[in-house]
């Protein structure tokens, strides 16, 4: 009768529910990243890349692949995770989750696990698509995958917080559109920050996304604009910050319980 120390069936129920939701929109979910990636290659690769052939000895087409993957990973992670928890709040079905023997950790594991899975799949689909246009070499494939998962988990946690904070569907979009996307474009997704003139280069170093993208790029090419240790530390710090906020949310019932 009793639920053990860990309600793994509850976690699986939430995970499967979320994955099932993604499967309903599987084709659009995968067609979008394939088409956008192809567009980026047509525009950047053909138009700009022909003038900007190499960065740090890497062909421009290959150079932008990690940035493209990160950009999608950020938006997918935030969108899936925020929507996943916002929807039951909006429809009221969250009553069941709140009344179930689920700890905060188990709830987050279910929602964030599913959202991170989907975001990682999308990033890998982008990698596969990019491979059709350019030759992508990966220096540290396992580290690349581990890094992908860490960033996905971090941004899904962030998305989860947004999904709880948001009072409506418009607010779900605000942070991704106004903060994350600009920071990503300005964070060297499509260029090396060494190409910037001062003071822009120094200013750019305050953008946390620079570290995320550079850390990831290092797993591909073994080179980066900033030290990889910084990148990992920054990602991990953000991860822990999100965890702390979520722990606070569940302890107080913020926007979950009246």
């Amino acid at each position, binding site marked *: *009768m*009793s*639920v*053990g120390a860990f*309600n793994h*069936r*509850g976690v*699986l*129920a*939430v995970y*499967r*529910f979320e994955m*099932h*939701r993604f499967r*309903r929109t599987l084709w659009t979910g995968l067609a979008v990243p394939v088409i956008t990636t192809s567009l980026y290659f047509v525009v950047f690769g053909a138009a700009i890349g022909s003038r900007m052939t190499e960065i740090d000895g890497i062909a421009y087409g290959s150079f932008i692949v990690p940035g493209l993957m990160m950009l999608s990973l950020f938006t997918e992670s935030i969108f899936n995770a925020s929507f996943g928890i916002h929807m039951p709040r909006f*429809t*009221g*079905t969250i*009553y*069941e*989750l*709140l*009344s*179930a*023997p*689920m*700890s905060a950790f188990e709830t987050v594991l279910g929602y964030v696990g599913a959202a991170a899975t989907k975001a990682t799949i999308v990033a890998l689909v982008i990698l596969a698509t990019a491979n059709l246009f350019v030759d992508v070499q990966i220096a540290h494939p396992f580290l690349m995958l581990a890094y992908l998962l860490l960033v996905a988990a971090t941004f899904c946690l962030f998305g989860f917080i947004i999904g709880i904070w948001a009072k409506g569907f418009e607010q779900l979009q605000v942070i991704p559109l106004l903060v994350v996307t600009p920071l990503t474009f300005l964070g060297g997704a499509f260029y090396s920050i060494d190409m910037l003139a001062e003071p822009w280069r120094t200013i750019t170093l305050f953008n946390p996304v620079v570290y995320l993208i550079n850390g990831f790029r290092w797993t591909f090419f073994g080179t980066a604009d900033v030290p990889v240790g910084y990148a990992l530390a920054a990602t991990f710090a953000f991860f822990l910050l999100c965890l702390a906020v979520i722990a606070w949310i569940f302890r107080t*019932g913020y926007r979950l*319980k*009246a």
Partner: protein
Amino acid sequence: MDSVLSIRGLSKTYKSGTVALKPVDLEIRRGEIFALLGPNGAGKTTLISIVCGLVNPSGGTVTIDGHDIVRDYRAARTKIGLVPQELHTDAFEPVWSTVSFSRGLFGRPGDDAYIEKVLRDLSLWDKRRTIMKELSGGMKRRVMIAKALAHEPEILFLDEPTAGVDVELRRDMWNLVRQLRERGVTIILTTHYIEEAEEMADRVGVINKGELILVEEKDALMRKLGKKELTLQLAEPLAAVPPELADWNLTLNGDGTELHYVFDPKGERTGIPSLLTAMRDSGIQFKDLNTHQSSLEEIFVSLVSDRRLGEARS
């Protein structure tokens, strides 16, 4: 008394400042059907929501089978199932998966045979592949009950299960509740309808403005509340109730123009025919007569004022 749910000093003040529950104490017996009766805004849903973990209490404690709902929430929540007042459903989920989901969420291993039984009991088996948004309101309510039963709870909360439900579903629901009780499930339901409490409950609690005014065995309560009053408007005022009519315990109004007789409409003999005969024999004539049954509203008012009087005396 074998108490399965114990509520002590439970209070709730919402952030808006609304005091939804004044400190409430309540013990629910194992295996009983308990009806919580009260007008709109009385605090019924708030009480249930705190017990089920949807609302944070402002004060007090709740234990379910000895498990504190905060410290020992896992053990406590595993035992309860909730059917909320409002219909909340996942529009695109088929009936079968949404019910299986509930079972998993509560940590129970899959059991297709059991889920099939629940769906059949609720006449949902034919709809098992239909997605929620294609179901009628009554069907959705059945699915919500199926979800609450999916993990075989020991205590079931039904928050206004028959609001906006047709006669057939209401009858089905009552049958289901009785079946569950036979299996030993404790049931706590809220309702506005005194007949519903009368039909189903073993005990009744009346709540008004966040205060639990009374908790009583249904039979005892119905004897009190089920009374009707006959009013006779007399042709000629009387100075006092004539001694020939002493048997009926009549009361006379202030100016002597009305006689009041309180009777039990479900009693074997209401005493009305014999009263009318006795009046004719005594030559007392009346112009008009009417009977009146107290509405729930009036009953609440009288309960509250009775309690105030009681408090003032003690």
